[in-house]
C-alpha cells in the first residue's frame, strides 16, 4: 500500500504567541519567532500510516509512506522528523516566507504536487492547531476526485478497500467502507505516537526529500478564497475573579471561597 501523509508545521502548543505588527497597525499574523512543531492530528495521521505500512510489510506486501507539506523553509525540519520516525520519502512544496495560504490554496498546491504520484491512500490531520479551518483534507479529496471519510479513529484494510471507524459527537462512532484510493482525515488518539529512534534519525539523513517551489505550481496567496482582516486577543466577556498571591495564598483564598459556597463536603 502506498500512503501519502500531509503534514503542517504549527507553533508549539506552549509557545507564547505575539501579534506581528501589520501595515496599518492591524495585526493579521503572529510573530514567527516562536518554536514550531508538527500539527498534533497530523502526527497521529503519520503514526496511522506507519502502522498500516508495517502491517503490509508483515504480510509480505509492499508498503510505502511519503510525507508532504506546503510550508516555508523551516518546515523541512518537520519532514526530517517524519523521515526519522519511519516515512520513506518527503516532498516539500516550499512557500515564500510570510506567505499565508488558506486551505483552498494549500489543497490546490498539494493536488498539483501529487500529479505524478500513484497512491492508495492519503491521510491528513482533521484540522490544524493554528487556523483550524478543518478543510485542507476534504479540499484535497475534492481536487483529486477521491472518496473521503473524516475524524477517523481506526483503519482496517478490507476486501481491496478500507473499513474505517469515524468518531461522532458525544462518544459515538460509526463504521464506513471505502474503495481505494481514498482520503481520510485522522483524529488525535488513533494510536499511540512513537518517538524517533537514534537509528531512525541517522537513516533519515539519507532519505529523499524533494523540493518544489509553490510558484512553479501556479499557486500564490492570490489563490486564497479567505482573507484575515485582523487578528487580536479574544474579547473578555466573563468577569473572572483572579486570585492573587503565592500558591499558598491563592490556595487559601480558594479554599475559603469554596467553603463559603458550601462546595466543600
Amino acid at each position: 500500500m502506498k500512503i501519502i501523509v500531509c503534514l503542517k508545521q504549527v507553533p508549539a502548543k506552549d509557545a507564547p504567541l505575539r501579534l506581528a505588527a501589520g501595515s496599518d497597525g492591524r495585526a493579521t499574523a503572529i510573530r514567527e519567532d516562536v518554536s514550531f512543531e508538527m500539527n498534533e492530528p497530523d502526527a497521529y495521521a503519520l503514526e496511522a500510516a506507519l502502522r498500516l505500512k508495517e502491517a503490509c510489510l508483515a504480510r509480505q506486501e509492499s508498503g510505502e509512506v511519503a510525507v508532504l507539506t506546503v510550508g516555508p523553509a523551516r518546515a523541512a525540519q518537520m519532514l526530517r522528523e517524519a523521515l526519522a520516525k519511519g516515512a520513506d520519502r518527503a516532498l516539500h512544496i516550499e512557500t515564500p516566507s510570510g506567505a499565508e495560504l488558506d486551505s483552498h490554496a494549500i489543497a490546490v498546491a498539494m493536488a498539483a504536487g501529487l500529479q505524478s504520484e500513484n497512491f492508495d491512500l492519503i491521510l491528513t490531520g482533521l484540522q490544524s492547531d493554528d487556523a483550524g479551518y478543518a478543510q485542507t483534507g476534504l479540499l484535497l479529496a475534492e481536487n483529486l476526485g477521491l472518496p473521503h471519510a473524516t475524524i477517523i479513529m481506526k483503519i482496517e484494510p478490507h476486501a481491496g478497500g478500507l473499513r474505517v471507524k469515524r468518531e461522532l459527537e458525544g462518544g459515538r462512532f460509526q463504521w464506513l467502507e471505502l474503495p481505494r484510493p481514498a482520503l481520510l482525515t485522522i483524529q488525535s488518539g488513533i494510536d499511540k505516537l512513537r518517538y524517533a529512534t537514534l537509528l531512525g534519525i541517522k537513516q533519515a539523513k539519507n532519505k529523499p526529500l524533494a523540493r518544489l517551489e509553490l510558484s512553479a505550481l501556479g499557486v500564490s496567496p492570490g489563490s486564497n478564497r479567505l482573507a484575515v482582516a485582523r487578528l487580536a486577543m479574544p474579547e473578555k466577556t466573563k468577569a473572572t475573579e483572579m486570585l492573587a498571591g503565592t500558591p499558598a495564598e491563592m490556595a487559601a483564598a480558594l479554599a475559603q471561597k469554596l467553603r463559603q459556597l458550601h462546595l466543600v463536603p
Partner: protein
Amino acid sequence: MSSVCLLAEQSGGKLNPITLEVLSAAQTLAGAAGLPVRALVLCGADETQAADALAGYALDKVIRVAHARLAPYVAESHLAAALAALAACGSDPLVLLPHTYQTRDYAPRLAARRGQGLITDVTALRWRESRLECSRPVYGGKLAAEVYLRAGPAGFYSLQAGAFPQPPAPAARPVPIEDFAVEIPAPRVLAEAPFQEARQSVDLSQAAAIVAAGRGIKEAKNLEMIRQLAAQLGAEVAASRPLCDSGWLPMDCQIGSSGQTVAPRLYVAIGISGAIQHLVGMKGARTIVAINKDPEAPIFEVADYGLAGDLFAIVPALISALNAA
C-alpha cells in the same frame, strides 16, 4: 446575492437544536441586508417532519429534499442533494450551516463545488460595508481572527454551537414547504449505523463536583494528586482529551464535544487550556475554577475563579488548605 439560506441539520426527523441557533443568525443577517431567509432540509424518506418544525419560524420558505439515500447520512449523497437544491435558493445565496461533525464532513466539498469559500467555526458575524466579517477562534482559542470571503459575501459559513443563543423569531404568517426532487447516484462510501462505544462506567453528567486534569499535569503519575484533591471535594475525576488519548484515564472520563457534557455545581480545571471542544462540555457548570500557568489561557474566560500559576505548587497547597479545616 439573493437570499440567506440555512442548511438545516436533522436526524431521525428531529432538528439538531443548533439548527435553530443558525436560523436566528440567518434572520438577523437577512434582516440587516433586506434579504429573504430560506431553509434547506435534507432528510431521509421518513424524516420529513423536520421541515414542519422549521416552518414554525419566520422564513420565506422551507425547501425539503427527501430521498432514501439521505438516511443514514453519507457525505457524497448529502453533497449531491445540497448542490442540486441550492440552485433552488436563488442565485448565489449566502449559506449558513452549523459547525458540527456532519458539516465538517461535507461542507468544504460543497463550497468547493460551487467555486466558493467556507469560513468554519464562526462565533460572530458583522457587516462591515459590503464585507461580511466573521470572528473565529484560532490557535486553540488563544487568539481571535476576523475573516471574510475575498470574492464577496456569497458563500458558506458554519457557526459554532452556543455562539448565537437567541431563539429565532416565530412565523407571523404560514411558511410554505416546497418539495424539491433530486437524483442521488449510489455513493462510493457505505455507512453503518452510529453506535455508542461502551456503557459509561461513571455517568459524569450526574456528578455534583468534578476535578478535571489536562495535559499540564505532564505525567500519568501526577493524577495521584488530582485524585487526592477530588476526594477532598467529594468530586469525580475527569480529563481533557489528550489524557484519555494517552490512555492515562478511560475515555469515559473525557469531557467535551467528543466525550461527556457535564453541569456540576463545581468544576475545577487543572492544566487545561480551554479549547472550544473542551469548553462545550463543561461551561454549564455552576462554579468553575481554573488553575493554569498561562494567565492568557482561554479557560480563564469561562472561569469564576482563576489561579494563574504552577499547578505543581498550587494543587498541593490547595490540598493542605482544604485539610486545615
